């Protein structure tokens, strides 16, 4: 895959195929969008792979992309405390960490691997 639109198409088809309830689809779409937007921007990845699975422990999302090292779990931004102190960016990865039950990251031979269960 090369774009956010392609990733969201995969998520929407997965939601229909597995008959997921709306709140789970919402979170799956959110996590996918935030990660893909960030990997295209920060890892300078030209393409990526997205694999979705429904497991006993929850919904699993495995995202892999060749490019610069970019660990989405390393972001330490929290919720906004005030409008005055707000800065653009960073909220997306905070949302990912907020809705994820677990988030694992590794970087091997120039490829980033992110696995999330929600």
């Amino acid at each position, binding site marked *: 895959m090369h774009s*956010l639109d392609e990733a*969201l198409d995969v998520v929407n088809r997965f939601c229909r195929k597995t008959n997921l309830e709306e709140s789970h689809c919402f979170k799956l779409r959110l996590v996918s969008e935030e990660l893909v937007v960030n990997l295209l921007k920060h890892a300078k990845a030209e393409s990526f792979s997205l694999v979705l699975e429904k497991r006993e422990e929850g919904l699993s999302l495995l995202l892999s992309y060749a490019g610069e090292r970019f660990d989405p779990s390393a972001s330490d931004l929290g*919720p*906004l405390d*005030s*409008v005055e102190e707000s800065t653009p960016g960073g*909220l*997306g990865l*905070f*949302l990912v960490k907020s809705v994820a039950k677990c988030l694992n990251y590794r970087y091997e031979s120039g490829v980033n691997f992110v696995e999330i269960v929600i």
Partner: protein
Amino acid sequence: MVDVVENGVVRIAFKDRLDATNATEVLKTISPTLEGLEKDLLLDMSALEYISSAGLQVVLHCVKAAQKVGRETQVSGMNANVSEILNISGFLTFLKEV
């Protein structure tokens, strides 16, 4: 995608999705309204199904525009999923829900 109606307040009604696929376009549509703002803002989310961080930036832009001219921003009609995202992001600490 978005409607703007002026009455006692300026009501901006978001529709369907507010995310990275359309946030720039939505912001472009509402910018003239925000630049000439003279009343309080009401963000109507009753037809909004989904919001991401890109959508939250649009909401933040609205709040800042209102604050700049001494006006308040209220939000209404959020579904449970949208409300959860605004809540965990801290937005409901400075947005008044009506």
